[in-house]
């Protein structure tokens, strides 16, 4: 484990070598959205919960970053709100695709490409629908 890696060992081709396609993009997006939520999402989620537990003043201070005094969402609110919603739905759709792939289905080239593309269409559609409902309620 702590031994020095052998420089002569063959390594897997990386992003610059593979030809780009939907199946490759969706794999990168799965890692990007997952790790993005795990870092940025976790900090915001824990900050939000701790601020709520702290009482009205600390909750107001948290919300002031994202929503102005009259309840209008600020650019930062849209950036993190829509960004994290899109990341969640993309990771969710891609994760469901992984569950299907785990059964051994969906490896035919055309099917694989179609499902990879579908995860992106689904995540954009769900994000748009979710924010339409959220903004309508306000």
């Amino acid at each position, binding site marked *: *484990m*702590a*031994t*020095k*890696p052998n420089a002569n060992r063959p390594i897997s081709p990386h992003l610059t070598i593979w030809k780009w396609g939907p199946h490759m993009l969706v794999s990168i997006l799965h*890692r990007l959205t*997952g*790790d993005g*939520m*795990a*870092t940025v999402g*976790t*900090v915001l*989620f*824990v900050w939000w*919960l*701790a601020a*709520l*537990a702290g*009482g*009205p003043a600390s*909750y*107001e201070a948290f*919300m002031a970053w994202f*929503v102005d005094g009259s309840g209008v969402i600020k650019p930062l609110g849209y950036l993190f709100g829509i960004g994290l*919603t899109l990341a*969640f739905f993309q990771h*969710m759709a891609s*994760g*469901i695709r*992984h*569950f299907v792939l*785990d059964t051994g289905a969906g490896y035919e080239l055309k099917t694989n490409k179609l499902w990879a593309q579908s995860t992106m269409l689904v995540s954009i559609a769900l994000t748009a629908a*979710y924010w339409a*409902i*959220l903004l309508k*309620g306000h």
Partner: protein
Amino acid sequence: MGSGTDLGRVRGLGSSKEGAHHWWHQRLTAAGNLILMLWFFASLALLPAHDYPTMAGWLASPLAAVPMILLVASVFYHFRMGLQVLIEDYLDGAGRITAILLLSFFTIGSAAIAIFSILKIAFTGALV
């Protein structure tokens, strides 16, 4: 490498008996996340407002506090495994071990703050 029996030299280096647990736990928590995160997103959308009284009143209910604690357990365990794989893909040697150690501290520390916050609201109710 040199001293010790053949068995002693390889013990602990492979995935024998426990290699599948990471893969399986990732799927197990993914299924949990799917249910709990959809519930969380739906709850936020269904609340009439997102000001302090509404949010604290919502989280003070056991029907919100218990799923929220389950969500923290499932999601945080899941993301810790995901970030571990990221570290294993890009770091080697001592850097890898240090990063995974820091990752564990980050996960457990942030989960403790999250669960404490939920319990505080659930047990003491909304502050006026």
